């Protein structure tokens, strides 16, 4: 694993290119301390949209995922769920933009579809692991539906609720990110502000975003969920025109049909020959370099995230810091893990220029902060020996060996997530698969885009299977509802 990363590092394109980054750093720091809340057009609408899209996307994904979870024993359902969650929200959004245009449906489906795949998997696992003792107490004549509703569901319900709340937080992040491809959420203005160097405006938008995430537990009461859904349905922009069924049909029957088939009259050997040429060129010129860059970036970022985790987790652990130190640690980790990695990468890109380095650091920081947070919490419940050493000795000889397996489990669990994020950073110009997908959409070549998205999904599935095999072999267990 480490060896692969070292090799990746050699081939990676990591240099600092900007001539004068300090000037930019100074402007950023000035911007951060002087947030300007009045600069952005339609900021209130963007805030409302961000929350509404998240609520509807998560609610709809939750609903679909619940029913998919019940059918999760069917192999086809399991495979289908794995496939739809292997494709990042932003790619779903790019696809739906072609079909439904800039409408609410695009935003909701872009979140709901991948989330339903995630919900299905997690809910199925929760049901599987649920306590079965209550099953033994009921009469044998009880119907299957009654057993499910009155015996198995109540037990799992609380886990469903906890997990849904966590997903809502992810949903808010994703919803904001959808703005990067043009939906009217916070990301729309955030990307513009950063790219135009308007750091006071960017810092104001980020502050609002952090406040929404930080207060989530204050406003997300279960009782209010129906109200939230109704209000969200009322406030989201349903679009400028009706959803046109001809657009949907056209997308599937024309747009995504590979070009050689689309232009040929009768399909004959020549068509197949030119299709073969088309797909070979696409694979050699785009897919292959994209796959290589994606893997290189993923591996370096994964090891980076691991290294940063080992530095980050003591910051919030009561075994190492007092109340004051831990509070600072918490603030640092919350900011690092709530800032979308796309934004982190964009900031580093402005500072260091367009190599792979900004993406590596962004992914490592973001994921390091997430695993660091989980590991820090994990150490809270550890009981130390009365004669335990202190400081660096405690860290290296006592805590670290004890949590190392858990750490590896989390890290492997994040592997596939990091790869999915890697692809997305392509939109920023880092030549992963996402770069070629974005280019295909920019050239209105949807046939290429869809094929590249499918390749990306297969790559993710491969990593997913590999990570599960490794975790099983090392007998590492993770609580899914933590990640």
């Amino acid at each position, binding site marked *: 694993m480490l060896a692969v990363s070292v090799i990746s590092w050699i081939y990676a394109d990591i240099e600092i*290119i*900007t*001539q*004068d980054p300090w*000037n*930019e750093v100074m402007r950023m720091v000035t911007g951060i301390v002087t947030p300007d809340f009045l*600069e952005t*057009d*339609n900021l*209130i*609408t963007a805030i*409302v949209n961000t929350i509404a899209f998240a609520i509807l996307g998560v609610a709809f994904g939750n609903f679909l995922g619940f029913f998919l979870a019940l059918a999760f024993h069917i192999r086809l359902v399991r495979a289908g769920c794995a496939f739809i969650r292997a494709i990042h929200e932003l790619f779903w959004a790019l696809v739906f*933009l*072609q079909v439904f*245009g*800039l*409408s609410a449906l695009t935003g909701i489906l872009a979140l709901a579809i991948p989330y339903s795949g995630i919900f299905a998997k997690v809910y199925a696992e929760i049901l599987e692991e649920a306590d079965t003792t209550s099953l033994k107490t009921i009469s044998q004549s009880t119907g299957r539906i009654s057993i499910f509703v009155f015996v198995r569901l109540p037990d799992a319900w609380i886990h469903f609720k906890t997990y849904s709340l966590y997903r809502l937080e992810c949903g808010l992040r994703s919803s904001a990110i959808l*703005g*990067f*491809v*043009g939906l009217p959420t916070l990301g*729309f203005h955030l*990307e*513009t*502000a950063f*790219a*135009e*160097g*308007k750091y006071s*405006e960017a810092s104001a938008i980020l502050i609002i975003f952090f406040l929404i995430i930080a207060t989530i537990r204050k*406003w997300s*009461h279960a*009782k*209010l969920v129906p*109200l*939230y859904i*109704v*209000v969200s349905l*009322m*406030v*989201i*922009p*349903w*679009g*400028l*025109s009706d959803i*046109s069924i001809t*657009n949907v049909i056209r997308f599937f029957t024309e747009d995504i049909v590979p*070009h050689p088939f689309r*232009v040929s009259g009768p399909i004959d050997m020549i068509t197949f020959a030119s299709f073969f040429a088309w797909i070979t060129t696409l694979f050699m010129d785009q897919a292959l370099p994209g796959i290589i860059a994606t893997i290189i970036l993923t591996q370096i970022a994964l090891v980076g995230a691991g290294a940063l985790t080992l530095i980050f987790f003591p910051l919030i652990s009561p075994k190492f810091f007092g109340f004051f130190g831990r509070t600072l640690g918490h603030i640092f980790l919350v900011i690092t893990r709530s800032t979308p990695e796309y934004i982190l990468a964009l900031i580093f890109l402005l500072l260091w*220029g*367009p190599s792979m380095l900004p993406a590596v650091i962004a992914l490592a920081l973001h994921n390091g902060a997430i695993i660091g947070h989980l590991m820090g919490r994990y150490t809270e419940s550890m009981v130390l020996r009365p004669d335990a050493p202190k400081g660096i000795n405690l860290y290296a000889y006592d805590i670290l060996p004890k949590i190392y397996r858990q750490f590896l489990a989390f890290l492997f669990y994040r592997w596939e997530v990091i790869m999915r994020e890697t692809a997305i950073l392509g939109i920023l*110009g880092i030549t992963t698969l996402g770069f070629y997908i*974005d*280019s295909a*959409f*920019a*050239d*209105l*070549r949807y046939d290429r885009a869809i094929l590249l998205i499918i390749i990306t999904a297969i790559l993710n599935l491969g990593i997913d299977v590999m990570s599960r095999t490794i975790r099983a072999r090392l007998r590492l267990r993770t609580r899914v509802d933590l990640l």
Partner: protein
Amino acid sequence: MLRFLVGFFLIISVIHTEQVFANTFVFTAIPDEDESKLRSRFDKVATYLTNQLAIEVKYIPVKSYGAAVTAFRNNQVQLAWFGGLSGVRARALVSGSTAIAQGVEDPNFQTYFIAHSSTGLKKSSNFPIIIAGKTFTFGSKGSTSGRLMPEFYIRKHFSKSPNKVFSRVGFSGNHSRTISLVQSGAFQIGATNFQVWKKDLAAGKIDTSKVSVIWETPSYPDYNWTIRGDVDKNFGSGLIERVKTALLNLKDPDLLASFPRKGFIPASNADFRPIVTVGKQIGLIE
């Protein structure tokens, strides 16, 4: 707390319930330069058109050139301010759509190749072969002046794709960003729209001790207003002519500064044939 939240969200929903734009005439513009305040800038144009046409006209902002074309194709917008390439692509996808107006400057549009001062390059009238091996940024992937034409001249002079000519190739996203990336030294060379260069220069946003123009391309046709053919049917006959007249009569310098153009003149689909030829030649149009 619960009651407060209920009240608060009900109020938000009343204020923010999105009005339905049934039969509203909508236009968009490709996001080719400074993308902040897009809405404030183009809402003024929407107001002007509303007054001139006596129907409700709205502007929606889009994040990319591709999104502008898609919105036009899906009939979410009926009128768009496109670049040469995006206009050609949009008209190929929507039969019956026509280019009705262009900027005074557009029949003779140019791309400027710009360089950071550390390269030591000076302005020349010949194509600067010396840029080979340096880092280079285009504008948006779908831009005429920031992608199509510079790529055409690069391929013409090196007989190689830009990836093989330069040590690094980037896509900045828009023209003002290309200028600032070259100015900061993130890229050594860039290709930008000459109108945006002149506008940013006049606004004092360019530090000429750090970035300067090293080559100007020959002229080519670029931006245009393109309208869907079915608007006469959907919004009343004669609308296409009225939109055209309204655009040609647009004289307010404040509104024209959004484009930035001195004024608008008539255009036709045939004006953009050179773009189709070049687009096919470098494989950006099939």
